[in-house]
């Protein structure tokens, strides 16, 4: 009887031969020393492969992934930036809403512009224009709010609600972009 192929020996060792083929292989192995030796070699090979030599990953692998996924510093920085921006927005809004500007800043800008020429005058005129526009809009909004909400408390509540809505809209707009940026960075 011809010797068993390597494939048959491997399959025999794995127990994946059918019952008839397996019986034939077993009978042959009883008679053939060469095949017995080859089968033993494959068995040992299997047992050695089943105990792989695994290289240990460096300790930095997981901490660096955590750092990349949850960067600590940028998170604090962005919170600080958000708080600062909100504060600036709130102060500016209160300043405009309660018309503190009419006798000081705007007047000062108007006076500075008089008699000034060149690019500086252009910049100051631009700022004044924007400021006047913002003031006009805030006055209109203030009038509307006073009409709808006659009490000071109601006005404050409305202002906070507007701010919260603006913050929510901004975060809804930013969240998918930040997520995409994070994925791109990775």
């Amino acid at each position, binding site marked *: 009887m011809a010797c068993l192929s390597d494939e048959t020996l491997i399959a025999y060792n794995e127990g994946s031969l059918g019952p008839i083929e397996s019986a034939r292989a077993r009978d042959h192995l009883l008679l053939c020393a060469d095949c017995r030796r080859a089968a*033993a070699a494959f068995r*040992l090979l299997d047992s050695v492969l089943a105990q792989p030599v695994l290289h240990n990953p460096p300790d930095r692998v*997981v901490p660096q992934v955590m750092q990349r996924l949850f960067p600590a510093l940028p998170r604090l920085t962005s919170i600080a930036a958000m708080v600062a921006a909100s504060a600036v927005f709130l102060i500016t809004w209160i300043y405009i809403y309660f018309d503190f500007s009419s006798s000081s800043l705007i007047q000062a800008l108007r006076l500075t512009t008089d008699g000034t020429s060149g690019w500086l005058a252009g910049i100051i005129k631009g700022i004044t224009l924007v400021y006047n526009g913002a003031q006009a809009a805030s006055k209109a909004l203030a009038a509307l709010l006073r009409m709808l909400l006659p009490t000071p408390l109601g006005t404050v509540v409305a202002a906070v609600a507007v701010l919260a809505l603006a913050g929510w809209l901004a975060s809804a707009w930013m969240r998918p972009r930040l997520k995409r940026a994070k*994925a791109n960075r990775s």
Partner: protein
Amino acid sequence: MQLDEDQALIRKTLRGERRAFEELMRKYEKRIYGFVVRMVRNEETAVDLTQDFFIKIFTVLEKYNFEYKFSTWAYRICYNLVIDHIRKHQAQVSSLDDESVSPRDLLTSGNVVREDGFKALSRAETRDYVWRVVDQIPLKFRELILLRYIQDLKYEEIADITALPVGTVKNRIFKAKEILKQEMEKDGLLV
């Protein structure tokens, strides 16, 4: 639905528990790194790819289907990541022809021949020897040996991950074992 340990960690991660994801990484890092480093044969690249793998897993975790085993899903992502890297960066993958990395220096003279034909290297030496030969066989055989023995996967799971027919997977693993045996014979480890 009954969740296994991995799936419970994934649920926690999806709820925002960072430590759960860290635990998941700790559980898999050795096997993933062990697989990757033997595929790319460069420690620095293996570290980068292992980290990229975990970040990729984190970003696509929402898409994980709880009906399937996490490990098979993760190994498929890992396999694709490594294969893409190899295709891009390692067009020439050295194989057994590369004499500079031969494991022959593991063999010592005067070894006693045992009945099974292996020279009497210690168990650990034989293991080191065989795995160093594995590192040098051609990629199409090596990847399957690594998936089978490092990731401890069944033929069907390997076929699913590599998108190869089960028959091809079996044949290549058989062929890989023949190559390993032949190399041992060439090196005088088998008589």
